[in-house]
């Protein structure tokens, strides 16, 4: 069953033209507007229980799309249906069935304890007191927040705060959870914990997840399907397996050798940079293996080695470039 359906959705923002330098006085007399297409004619749907990642660089239109799906922003054109409701016309009704977690915008009152916050949010969603206390206790157990539930939110670490934010957004038992960069600013351990919890919500409680992030780790671990958006347009809508196979299976290997040994390119191994005894190689794991790469030199010659995945930004850029090329052809 489809829980989200988006058809030809667009959102324009009118911006005032900026005059630079000596022309600054034109601001006073001219009112030239520039139309910025934040979201440009996108269509997609999400099945019940799916975990979908929405990725793209800054200003790509991810947050704007989420904000239109949750009823925060009015679309310029197009149709949206979330759980059969129109977010612009039935915002209040919809908000009882969805939850939102914005990494950059906290909904908790920082001077109050997490518990006070939960009791308040329970009242906002008209949850009977008895039922609310039971729900808080269940969620506190799942999210392991009992230790600090009675501490003021301002005294909690960012990771603990995000856990509390998630509990607050789950109190009313939402069917869909929208996460907008929930792991922003978190340390690796807190990130991992949060990812596991989101995964648990999706797998064990069957909550549909729509997730935006810049962090490839977030997406890899949490989502099965990914939509890449850039300049307000969908560049790719595929499952995670395919994305990994085609784009994220390229590793960047930097080797520093003791002696000046010449390394030659092989199928699946591309030299990106070579300087004296230092090499930066791109290794396509679909074609070759690490074993074959290590066979290019003797273990005794190796001084240092570092292996990293192609940065997500580069993946997005390459997909974007591919999209552009297809258009020109």
């Amino acid at each position: 069953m489809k829980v989200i359906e988006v058809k030809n959705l667009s959102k324009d923002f009118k911006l005032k033209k900026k005059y630079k330098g000596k022309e600054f006085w034109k601001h006073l007399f001219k009112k030239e507007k520039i139309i910025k297409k934040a979201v440009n004619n996108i269509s997609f749907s999400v099945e019940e229980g799916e975990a979908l990642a929405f990725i793209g660089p800054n200003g790509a239109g991810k947050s704007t799309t989420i904000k239109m799906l949750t009823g925060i922003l009015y679309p310029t054109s197009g149709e949206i249906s979330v759980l059969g409701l129109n977010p612009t016309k039935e915002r209040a009704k919809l908000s009882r069935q969805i939850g939102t977690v914005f990494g950059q915008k906290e909904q908790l009152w920082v001077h109050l304890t997490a518990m006070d916050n939960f009791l308040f949010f329970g009242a906002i969603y008209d949850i009977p007191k008895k039922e609310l206390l039971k729900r808080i206790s269940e969620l506190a157990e799942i999210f392991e927040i009992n230790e600090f539930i009675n501490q003021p939110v301002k005294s909690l670490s960012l990771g603990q705060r995000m856990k509390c934010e998630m509990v607050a957004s789950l109190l009313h038992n939402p069917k869909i959870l929208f996460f907008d960069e929930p792991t922003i600013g978190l340390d690796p351990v807190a990130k991992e914990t949060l990812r596991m919890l989101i995964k648990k919500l999706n797998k064990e409680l069957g909550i549909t997840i729509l997730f935006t992030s810049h962090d490839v780790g977030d997406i890899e671990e949490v989502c099965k399907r990914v939509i890449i958006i850039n300049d307000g347009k969908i560049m790719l809508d595929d499952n995670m397996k395919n994305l990994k196979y085609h784009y994220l299976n390229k590793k960047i290997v930097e080797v520093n050798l003791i002696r000046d040994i010449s390394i030659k390119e092989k199928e699946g191994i591309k030299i990106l940079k070579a300087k004296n005894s230092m090499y930066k190689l791109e290794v396509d794991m679909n074609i070759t293996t690490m074993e074959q790469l290590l066979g290019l030199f003797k273990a005794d010659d190796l001084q240092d080695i570092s292996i990293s995945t192609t940065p997500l930004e580069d993946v997005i850029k390459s997909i974007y470039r591919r999209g552009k090329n297809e258009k020109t052809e």
Partner: protein
Amino acid sequence: MGVKNNFLLIFKYLKLNLKKEAQYKSSFVLQIIMMILNDLFFILQWIIVFSLTDSIGGYGFREVLVLWGLSAGSYGISHLFFYGAFNIGDFIYNGKLDVFLTQPKNILINVCCSSTSVAAIGDIFYCFIVFAIAGVTWWWYLAAIPIIIIGGIIFAALIVCYQTLAFYVKKGNAFADMVASSITLFSTYPPVIFDIVSKVFLYTIIPCGFMVFVPMQYIFLSFNIWWVLAMVGVAVVLVVLAFLLFKIGLKRYASGNLMGGRI
């Protein structure tokens, strides 16, 4: 059900806001006391004025004190219950309405009640302190309660109407701040000193006339049911207008990605 729910929400917000503010007990008490003292200092100017003359157009020291009381009380109610209304422009301009838009309750009530001014408690106390200094009869105290509640609603609703300008003009809420200052300034002077043009101004653009002058003239000094009904009517019209303007303006809300939290 909806109205009852919204009333409950207003008081829930007040309870939570006071709980939040009471975390810093000394600051909490100090803010209230300082506001009472601040307001009391203004009486000095009137003591000086009335040492030179017995009355201004029929208004003596006692009547001016009551005017001050009603003005401070209305200001106090609006700032205690609906302090968020005075910051709506900032919420719009900096894209801070997102949190409220994802909740099922009425957005405007949610925003208006989202914060409180502790000092406003001092203003409400001050209202009754000056009533005591003026030596009014007991029913004036009782009548003052609904009057300052209606006055506070008029004040907050009017400010919401002006704050919604921020949906159309960047920092358009600056005008609302000017209106708020004008209301507190003009509502403490005896209405008899204003000419007809000023009175039109004070009963339309900044309707402090309905907040303070009408109850003073037509409830305390004489009684006219039509003026009392007009006062209630203005409050209702302004509340409806505030909800309408906010709803229309919301279509232009552009959100934003500024980092922020609720404090």
